């Protein structure tokens, strides 16, 4: 017998005795299973404007910086001020419509991750520039994937992560964001997807919040038209 057969055998043996469904406990009347949780979770705005505002509130509460830009050139100008303020010398990024246009104007030394990179080279970057799959208004999260954010490490290794997102990437809640990637990738999922909610943090010392535990100390999200 293989280990798989041993464990599956133990499971089917164990499940011969049924456990009562939770809705039937306490002698309560059976409740039909609600298939989606939107009814219970924190509300998300109905219109795009409400969602953008909710996203701003949630992202800022998570100590991320959020800025809605009217044009791409406004976003470029803003990233330039970030670069000057942070004294960036080298950035990590991936190829993409938005990252290309911003990085081109920055004119800094670059590490592009698309075709592989040296870890130490990426580690010594001052900032990372990525795109994303979606923004989640309900939680203030950025959903990234390996193809949309230059792989796994780019969005977590450099100390400042700058996300460039389009307005049509705003989703009201986690359910909608997950549906979006499910529809996009069907059964060809990338090996990595991550909801990023604010800069890296820890409370392991006396439960006191410290930003930049292992990942970025700063997260900036720029919303483009």
């Amino acid at each position, binding site marked *: 017998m293989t280990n798989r057969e041993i464990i599956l055998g133990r499971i089917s043996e164990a499940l011969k005795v049924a456990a009562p469904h939770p809705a039937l406990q306490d002698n309560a009347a059976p409740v039909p299973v609600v298939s989606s*949780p939107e009814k*219970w979770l924190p509300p998300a705005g109905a219109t795009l404007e409400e969602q953008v505002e909710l996203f701003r509130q949630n992202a800022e509460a998570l100590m991320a910086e959020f800025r809605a830009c009217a044009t791409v050139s406004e976003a470029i100008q803003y990233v330039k001020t970030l670069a000057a303020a942070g004294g960036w010398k080298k950035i990590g990024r991936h190829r993409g419509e938005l990252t290309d246009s911003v990085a081109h104007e920055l004119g800094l030394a670059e590490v592009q991750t698309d075709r592989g990179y040296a870890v130490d080279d990426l580690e010594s970057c001052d900032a990372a520039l990525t795109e994303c799959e979606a923004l989640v208004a309900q939680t203030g999260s950025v959903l990234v994937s390996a193809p949309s954010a230059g792989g796994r490490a780019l969005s977590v290794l450099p100390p400042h992560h700058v996300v460039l997102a389009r307005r049509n990437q705003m989703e009201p809640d986690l359910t909608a964001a997950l549906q979006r990637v499910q529809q996009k990738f069907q059964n060809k999922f990338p090996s990595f997807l991550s909801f990023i909610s604010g800069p890296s943090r820890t409370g392991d010392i006396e439960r006191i919040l410290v930003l930049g535990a292992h990942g970025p100390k700063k997260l900036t999200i720029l919303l483009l038209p």
Partner: protein
Amino acid sequence: MNVYAKEFNASACRYTADLRHRDLIQKALAGYYAKRDEFKGRFQSWSGARDLAAEIKWEAVNHLDRYLDEFVSRLEARGAKVFWAPGAQEAQDYIVGVARQHKVRAIIKSKSMTAEEIHLNEALEKKGFEVAESDLGEYIVQLRKEPPYHLVFPAMHLTRQQISDLFHDKLNSEPTNNPEDLTMIARRIMRRKYCEADMGISGANFAIAETGMISITENEGNARLTTSLPKVHVALVGIEKVLPKLSDLALFLPMLATAGAGQSITCYNTLYGGPRQPGEPDGPEEFHVVLLDNHRTELLADAEQRDALHCIRCGACLNVCPIFKNVGGHSYGTTYQGPIGSVITPHLRGLQDWKHLSQASSLCGACTETCPVKINLHHHLLHNRRNAVRARPAFLEKLIQSGFVLLMRRPAFYQLAARVGRIAQPLQRLIRGTFFDPLRAWTKTRSFPPLAKKSFRELWRERKTP
């Protein structure tokens, strides 16, 4: 009394008398309570969310074979290697084997209670592999060579001063009282380790059957780095972690954050569905998923307590437990502390050895009330007590209880006992707490209120016959 019960009693006595410890834990949890309640309040209905979470977990656990099969076949289709581990030994051997096969020099590890459960670090170190814990709290307790104090907050029993002393002692860092400086010391050390490690080990919070992915929840980014840079990633996953659908995460991610840490959402919720795929810039060449049984199927076979496998290890029941807050996480002597640990440890490690934990409860039910997946925790402590005496009857206790019943059911005996008590109480005071006191376990630290000179019955009789 067995050795585990003796150790529990000794440690519990020490911690309950330690006011500094109590103060530290209460202070650490005060912020959690406020934030937890704030974010629960943002839910349209927290109780509706709990009902749904309990139903989803019930569905997964009661059809575990089907969902595990689905999970594994989808993972394997994307090139992941899945190992089914019936016990701790098989899981250890497999992971040591992977490390040997790749001639691994340095291992970086993110937080995993399942790895604590099978003592994975000791097993790897015994075979000559160095393992670095990357989660800050886990790193601190690893340097102290002690187990995590709490499922979610491993170092919550330590002050910044103690951590500064520890870092000064072990890492030769400058003493500092600033938590941010202390965090940055660990950050600098870990950065080198991520870049140099050739194997990363993680746990998993959820296993998604529908898409064949594991989901890892963390705040620090250490798990993301652990699973991004090394060329091999091994994830150790308990078989009960399965969720049927990807969309189930929309419910479980915010609930885990709010119940577990008083957050609206945890900083990184990451899904891994295989090794680096063609066209992807980075990620491990090999992705191994070790599915661990290790007595979970024995708990599964107990239909009455099967819902204990719904646990998402959020730690909320520890945070509200009056026993945990007084005896502290280390007194339990188990991988899983608090109410959930007291319920499942007898199943994982033997009922007779760990039955004393069922008594480490005031049965107040705060754990059951707070559990986001509605595990019937305090009733399961009673179930374990019942099962323990069924398997091995406690004659002395039975005798005492029958004496008590005799006393309570016959008014004449009860009155006699009250009269004897009134005479005996002043005498007992002379020997209170000493070896000769039969009630010394109780009276050593507590005073018994004096019995009334006259009973209600006597007063009533006097009133009626003036």
